[in-house]
């Protein structure tokens, strides 16, 4: 299987979907002629032209709303947020109109848009550019959100998101764009709502998503080698819809759970997952559920401190040892 970058995998998904469906278009700041701020759309404008690759002014509220309006008439816009943090100036459009138009019309319309872009810290760009709002998105019934941790999932989930008839947020990660994974040449889809077990284990379940799932996998290997702990790593892939069964089945097997995410702890995704585990697998637990999240403060600018603030292998191992205690 070819080894390609996360960035290339997303580009392939966009390219293939543009060719498959004439209503798919890509819209955002610098997506066309500049070839993408993070080069995710590189070459697509040259290949598909002005109609399908549309450069926007710096007006997230307007182009998000425009995409929603266009989607009501059957267009399937994929809008890029240069940083998902920039979606905050478009919250009324995305969180009110995007999620509620279907509901408030009693089901008379639907909004098939994709909102994609990097949602991560760890790059020394300060707190305003480092948001991970998958928890906020998931808090709005009507919206869906996925967080691919690798190139294979990024391509498969992107294609599923574009074909979905509801608004889907795809949370990418700038620290993963250049990383490589095996991705098959033949077409495939990764369905929303299906988690992936990255590593099987018997002593502890680590539930994670996005780049943290990869860090958890690394930590699990160290736990095995240095501490003799067999950790199972569940990569959620999709936050809403959520694959509860895979989480619960794993916890029922290992009897211990560590939840790892880059979100801030208060009302983070893992707060909900922790609730689900205690509600549905209470008798299976041998120890309190533990969490490793971003240390609860705005993101630090200075690299050394931000690297410590976000989940890292050392902090995940520390959390795992607490969960095993």
């Amino acid at each position, binding site marked *: 299987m070819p080894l390609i970058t996360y960035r290339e995998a997303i580009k392939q998904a966009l390219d293939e979907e543009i060719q498959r469906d004439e209503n798919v278009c890509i819209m955002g700041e610098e997506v066309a002629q500049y070839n993408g701020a993070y080069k995710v759309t590189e070459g697509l404008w040259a290949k598909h032209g002005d109609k399908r690759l549309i450069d926007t002014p710096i007006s997230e509220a*307007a182009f998000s709303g425009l995409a929603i309006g266009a989607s009501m008439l059957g267009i399937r816009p994929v809008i890029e947020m240069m940083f998902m943090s920039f979606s905050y100036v478009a919250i009324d*459009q995305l969180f*009110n*109109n995007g999620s509620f138009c279907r509901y408030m019309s009693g089901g008379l319309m639907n909004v098939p848009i994709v909102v994609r872009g990097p949602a991560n810290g760890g790059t020394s760009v300060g707190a305003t550019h480092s948001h991970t709002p998958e928890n906020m998105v998931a808090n709005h019934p009507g919206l869906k959100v996925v967080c691919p941790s690798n190139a294979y999932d990024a391509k498969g989930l992107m294609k599923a998101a574009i074909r979905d*008839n509801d608004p889907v947020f795809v949370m990418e990660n700038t620290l993963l764009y250049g990383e490589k994974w095996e991705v098959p040449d033949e077409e495939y889809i990764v369905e929303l709502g299906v988690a992936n077990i990255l590593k099987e284990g018997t002593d502890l379940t680590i539930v994670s998503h996005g780049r943290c799932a990869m860090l958890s996998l690394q930590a699990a290997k160290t736990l095995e080698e240095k501490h003799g702990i067999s950790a199972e790593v569940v990569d959620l892939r999709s936050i809403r*819809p959520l*694959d509860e069964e895979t989480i619960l089945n794993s916890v029922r097997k290992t009897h211990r759970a560590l939840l790892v995410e880059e979100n801030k702890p208060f009302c983070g995704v893992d707060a909900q997952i922790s609730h689900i585990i205690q509600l549905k697998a209470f008798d299976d637990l041998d120890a309190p559920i533990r969490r490793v999240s971003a240390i609860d403060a705005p993101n630090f600018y200075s690299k050394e401190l931000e690297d410590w603030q976000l989940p890292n292998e050392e902090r995940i191992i520390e959390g795992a040892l607490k969960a095993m205690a």
Partner: protein
Amino acid sequence: MATTKKKTAAVAKKPKAKLKNFATAPINKSLSKDEKIDLYRTIVGIRRFEERSLRAYNQGKIGGFLHLYIGQEAVAAGIVSLMEENDHIITAYRDHGHALAVGMSMNECMAEMYGKHTGCSKGKGGSMHFFAPDKNYWGGHGIVAGQTPLGAGLAFALKYKGLKGCAMAFLGDGAVNQGSFMETLNLASLWNIPVVFVIENNGYSMGTSLKRSSAEENLAHRADGFDMEWEVCNGHDVFEVREVANRAMIRAREEHKPFLLEIRTYRYRGHSVADANHEKYRTKEEIEEYKRTKDPLNVVKEHLLSDGTLTEELAKKIDQEKKDEAEASAKFADESPVAPRSEIQTDVYWEVDNDSEGKLKGTYFFND
């Protein structure tokens, strides 16, 4: 008087009424007798429906907010009468008039306000959120100016698909100071999108007069900053509305160009019915003067009586019909059931509502 864009000329702050008989303009002269009566019927219908809804609100039958359109009826009635097959319309929360004008029934609208299952949105939207996509009516939106980029999006879709049509995006004078609207003006002009923005300027954004909220009181002038054409007209005469809006709509359809139309109008009631102070931020005399000289219902009636379209007898008959229809809608709403509790989690996700193949994976709803 309609004033057209001239970069050097100042616009009259108050377009003077009756300098021109708009009823004889070609777009209006071409109306058949039945079409003119239909216009009258629409305006009467909106008035009587809203008067009845106000009674229901005061009786405690309607919850939340009730933003009445009374005084502005000729704007929606006039513009909707110009809509063609591929024209679309979207507005804010003062949305009853537009809904009835596109042909939504009083029953489904009244029932929606009563929160009943028979309402146009099954009771999920309420007064501010009427929708009828089958009639090209895309709401009914609650957040000030939030609908304006959606309107541009409808127009974008028309152009993308190569359809000849336009989108009519209505907003109030309070909405012009929202960032999303100004961003949208720029996008629409930059991309040559066939959208007509219609500012229904009733002079007050809730309790704040135009003078106290907008540095430039000639709201249409904002189009200049985005190299967009604009025009200003009065909103009390349905024939003036039609004459001026028609030009903007033709231009949008033919040339794929946006347009900013400012229509000077007036609301008789408060911002919403809860706004009991509306006679404190404006005088009673101001309200009475508008009603006496510019009431859109009286104005259209006078036109149609004078050109022989309407007789006093027919006018009275139509009025009674609309009163009866409004009364019947209140009865219908009152007697309708509320939605079953199972409806709380329908219409959230298209994919859940339409899972005919059982392909859904994972949990969509998180209740204990």
